[in-house]
């Protein structure tokens, strides 16, 4: 095991449709905020890691070059990490590896996306090759709807109950977004609104799916020595992390019990010494661009048994006042600048254990789970943070 690593500060942009700023200015907004939050300056950090979705999203390749000025990374080691939707958690992992190895004491991780400038689903279909899968995959909703559909049939779940549970998730997350000053979509919706919204890719309707957002997130990671040197009391210690990928072709592996999600969580739990996640975790930020898929994740992460998620959702187990609150920030469902989104999950988890989550703070949260997924159902990454070393 490497050296201990902590998150010491978080900066987020106001996410949304941000045609008021250029992409570099948007990135700088998050970077300025994390330096303001920590009282540090660009001179203090040993290295910078940045990441996005595929560059076709905004039509500029090699964004870590484009943002060299916005991240003040000139003269420093710089890395780019890109794992599709899971980019953000991979950024957190990269910063962790860097410091844990002893090669750095302070690393700035920046995730960013400006999705409203391009065509997000057209970009996503470029992650599959043009001779086979591209004809059928139809961007993220196509794939993840198929997965959700496979899951609900696998466990013989009642279609109406699953629909009700997904609507419940949509309503509660949209409500939570009002308590998050950085969230994008802030609308009050009812279960009836969700169930009657336009079909995007059945069973996913418009209010079951995340928006296209512009946003960036910057997080500073520090070694234990640096935490002591800076005299910091409230930090988020990295307790565990895990990542798994799967084979390339969509049809090659089972997606209903999604092994990359199961194994990524298990790796993180083993490292953190967690045996009963629902009991031991205080809050979770699950990457949830689709309401139906969120339930599948609860099961893969061991928050409940296979096929049990809809019942527990409807009982409020994963609500703000439930046994394991999930996505009190409103989650990906309400804010999705993809290259930033996974890092926002980790940042939100860190804010919870540092007791800095404001109006969506889960009282007394000490151990928080964060997650992101991506690819054509290929990638899952997890990072668990805690208030205790």
């Amino acid at each position, binding site marked *: 095991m490497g050296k201990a690593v902590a998150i010491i500060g978080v900066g987020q942009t106001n996410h949304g449709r941000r*045609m*008021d700023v250029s992409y570099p200015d948007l990135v700088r907004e998050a970077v300025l905020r994390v330096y303001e939050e920590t009282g540090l300056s660009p001179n203090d950090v040993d290295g910078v890691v940045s990441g996005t979705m595929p560059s*076709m999203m905004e*039509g500029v390749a090699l964004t870590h070059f484009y943002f060299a000025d916005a991240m003040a990374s000139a003269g420093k080691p710089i890395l780019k990490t890109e794992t599709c939707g899971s980019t953000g958690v991979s950024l957190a992992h990269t910063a962790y590896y860097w410091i844990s190895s002893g090669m750095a004491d302070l690393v700035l991780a920046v995730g960013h996306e400006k999705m409203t400038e391009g*065509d*997000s*689903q*057209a970009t996503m*279909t470029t992650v599959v*090759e*043009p*001779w*086979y*899968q*591209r*004809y*059928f*995959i*139809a*961007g993220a*909703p*196509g*794939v993840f*709807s*198929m*997965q959700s*559909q*496979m899951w609900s*049939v696998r466990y013989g779940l009642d279609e109406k109950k699953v629909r009700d549970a997904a609507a419940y998730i949509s309503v509660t997350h949209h409500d939570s977004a009002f308590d998050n000053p950085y969230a994008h979509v802030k609308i009050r919706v009812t279960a009836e609104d969700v169930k009657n919204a*336009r*079909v*995007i*890719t*059945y069973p996913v309707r418009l209010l079951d799916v995340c928006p296209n957002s512009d946003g960036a997130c910057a997080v500073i990671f520090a070694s234990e020595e640096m935490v002591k040197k800076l005299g910091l009391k409230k930090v988020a210690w990295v307790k565990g992390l895990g990542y798994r990928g799967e*084979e*390339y*072709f*969509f*049809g*090659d592996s089972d*997606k209903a019990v999604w092994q990359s999600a199961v194994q990524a969580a298990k790796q993180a739990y083993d490292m953190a010494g967690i045996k009963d996640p629902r009991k031991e975790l205080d809050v979770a930020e699950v990457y949830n661009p689709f309401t139906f898929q969120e339930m599948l994740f609860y099961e893969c992460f061991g928050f409940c048994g296979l096929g049990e998620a809809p019942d527990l959702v409807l009982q409020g187990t994963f609500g703000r006042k439930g046994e394991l609150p999930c996505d009190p920030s409103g989650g990906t469902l309400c804010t999705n600048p993809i290259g930033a989104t996974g890092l926002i999950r980790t940042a939100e988890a860190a804010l919870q254990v540092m007791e800095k989550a404001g109006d969506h703070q889960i009282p007394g949260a000490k151990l928080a789970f964060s997650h992101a997924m991506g690819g054509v159902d290929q990638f899952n990454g997890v990072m668990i943070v805690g208030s205790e070393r």
Partner: protein
Amino acid sequence: MNKEFKTIKTEIRLPYELAYGATWTRFFEGMSNQILYGSKCEKCNRVLVPARTFCPRCFIDTKEWVEVPQQGTLTAWSYVNYRYFGQPTTPPFIGALIRLDGTDVDFVHLLGGFDLSDFEKVRKIVKNGMRVEAVWANERKAHIMDIRYFKPLA
């Protein structure tokens, strides 16, 4: 429309010519002759379709070519009802995972052969586990769309 800040409209167009290599050349030649080729891994005994040069799990070359049955069972499906730039298939369409008989992975393709315009009618027809069969195009171009779609078997 008044805008507070200016924008620039831009586009990237780049030409590509992608090599199929020996395995996928043979696979698509098979499609043009209404044959679906898979490959069998001699280590894990799985039959993979489309055909592969190597088994992604065992990481050994696959040497045995298998002519795969053109009937199978529906594993999962998704009714797609939205559009994006450059979309190669016109919505509404149904993307599907199909477990072809005698194979060990799901083949991704379309479901069709019935009216897709009304989703409520579609959901009465399409059920996981139903039997489906490939419908070939009259003119074939050694291309994945040489199969027009898989149709439900009554």
